[in-house]
């Protein structure tokens, strides 16, 4: 593992995850499918944080679950450190699971309420045989709690005795217990209050530097994503519509959906806000069961032309590292 490795740690190509919709009790038959993820490609370099943003139902969480192999993708490849994991069996995945960990959104439902914090953090080490010695395992638990900014005494408490911010720190400690390289962070700060959110964001940053971690950061809060991520991919109805480095994407968005998304977020400054003309994008996200033809954004798009209804726009590199899936960008 050399840091100068030019190959990305994770490379996702043409990922599709279609869930069948079934009908009938005795004779199940498929009557349609939900195209949750429909041809998604991106890569994540070692030590980088890639943000995956979009609104509910855009497929960002499903993409994360495919990478964790909690789902078996319908098509496409997920190459992790040179190995395509899209088709691996659950048995073959076991070794990789130590290297790829996850932090979930809701720190209440992702911690077993009947287990003490110490057991929760120690369990993955026990299951994977990382630390067979019980005493050493407990020492490691205390170390992890301290690393995550919690008092080591918390090992004897139960999840319900802790606040949301503290529980999220436990979730992070549990992920770190495996010494992972890659962590899928699925909305890790969305359930937290602003003052606590900033504490957890700083912790995630510190850990990335300290342990050389790589993050896939899934979130809908664009301000948090801008702060944490080097590069950002914007998803809409199962597809990536724009991908660029963070400052480019936020200061110079190109795709009409990215523009609409950014324009919809009020910033905490009354002088800026009260002078801003606000024209929210009309309509709602269509159903992924029967997505619009051609470009999936065309029914809501302010610059759509006739051809947008027919053909699906390919992702184009308009500047080095800046990809946009829109045929109208850069025309006039």
């Amino acid at each position, binding site marked *: 593992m050399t840091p100068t490795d030019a190959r990305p740690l994770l490379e996702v190509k043409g990922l599709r995850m279609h869930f069948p919709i079934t009908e009938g009790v005795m004779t199940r038959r498929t009557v349609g499918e939900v195209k949750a993820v429909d041809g998604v490609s991106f890569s994540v370099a070692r030590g980088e944080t890639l943000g995956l943003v979009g*609104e*509910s139902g855009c497929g960002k969480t499903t993409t994360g679950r495919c990478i964790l192999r909690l789902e078996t993708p319908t098509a496409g490849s997920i190459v992790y450190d040179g190995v395509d994991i899209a088709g691996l069996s659950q048995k073959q995945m076991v070794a990789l699971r130590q290297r790829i960990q996850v932090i979930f959104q809701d720190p209440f439902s992702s911690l077993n309420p009947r287990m003490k914090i110490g057991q929760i953090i120690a369990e993955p080490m026990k299951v994977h045989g990382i630390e067979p010695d019980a005493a050493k395992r407990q020492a490691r638990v205390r170390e992890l709690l301290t690393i995550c900014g919690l008092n080591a005494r918390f090992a004897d408490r139960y999840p319900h005795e802790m*606040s*949301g*911010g*503290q529980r999220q720190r436990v979730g992070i400690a549990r992920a770190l217990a495996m010494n992972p390289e890659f962590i899928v962070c699925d909305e890790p700060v969305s359930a937290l*209050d*602003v*003052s*606590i*959110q*900033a*504490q957890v*964001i*700083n912790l995630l*940053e510190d850990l990335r530097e300290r342990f050389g971690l790589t993050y896939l950061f899934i979130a*809908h809060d*664009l*301000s*948090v994503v*801008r*702060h*944490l991520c080097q590069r950002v991919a914007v998803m809409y109805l199962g597809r990536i519509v724009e991908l660029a480095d*963070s*400052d480019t994407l*936020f*200061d110079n968005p190109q795709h009409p959906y990215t523009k*609409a*998304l*950014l*324009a*919809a*977020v*009020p*910033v*905490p*400054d*009354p*002088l*800026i*806000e*009260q002078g*801003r003309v*606000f024209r*929210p*994008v*009309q309509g*709602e*996200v269509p159903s992924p069961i029967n997505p619009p033809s051609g470009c999936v954004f065309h029914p809501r798009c302010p610059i759509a032309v006739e051809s947008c209804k027919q053909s699906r726009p390919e992702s184009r590199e308009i500047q080095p590292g800046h990809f946009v899936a829109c045929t109208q960008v850069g025309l006039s």
Partner: protein
Amino acid sequence: MPPLLDIRGLHTEFRTSAGVVRAVDGMSYSVQAGETVAIVGESGSGKSVGAMSILRLIPDPPGRITAGEVLFDGQDLLKLSEEQMRQLRGSQIGMIFQEPMTSLNPVLTIGRQITETLEQHRGATPAAARERALALLGLVGIADAPRRLKQYPHQLSGGMRQRIMIAIALACEPKLIIADEPTTALDVTIQAQILELMKELTQRLNIALVVITHNLGIVARYATRVNVMYAGRIVESGSAAAIYHDPRHPYTIALLRSVPRLDRPRQARLDPVEGQPPDLTRLDGGCAFRPRCRFATDACATARPVLAQAGIEQGHWAACFNSGSLSTTDQAA
């Protein structure tokens, strides 16, 4: 002109097995007719309980309003009978809650839920109520109104359900609407649609709006006046410009510094409010923010500061002994 809503020293307690939780602990603020006032705070600061107390919707037991006055149009709502209060809710004061799925009745059609309000409060005939319901749906931007009236809440999207909630709140032409986190459950593009709709309608119909939120961006965009809550009290109150550009309470300063900004390049680190929010069963006689405050002095342990004039703007108050000497120079950096 006397304010439309004037809350003075409101106290609401919950008696729990862990002790008495003083959820609202001396809350005072006022709302002028037609004005939009934001109540900002984090979980447990008492902002929702405060709003529910205005409407007397606190379940008793375990909750109880123990002291204070809620003057609405000159009359104290806390002195009204339950029947008088029921007449007032939904007619003179409208409500919009966070989760439109749980605040709409799942077994009644949309049409029934709107006409019910009109028939109850206005004595409207079914035909007149239906006419008005159709007009209201048009007002909140719902197309194909006759079909929508026959649908049930589960057949609508979250944004659509929130539009229905707004239609119900507007039905009896209230003077005041209380909106508790009206867009927290919605996606950002839908949130923007709903907020712009609420702004447009409240301005056009001259309705005062109390909006409860934790989102500092929404407050900056929509509120004329801002009240910041911490541990059951308003700790700072002022115009949006004063609160954001000349904050005078350490908690407000810390809150504004801790949010990442969409309109600024990434900085190295955020500046969080350290520590945890206080346990409301164990508040002592000092300032509740003291344990997390970087400006705290010995005086802060001796008494709880009350709101006093702060900053240069008239009507800008902060509850802090040191509000005159806080350094906020790096605020705009």
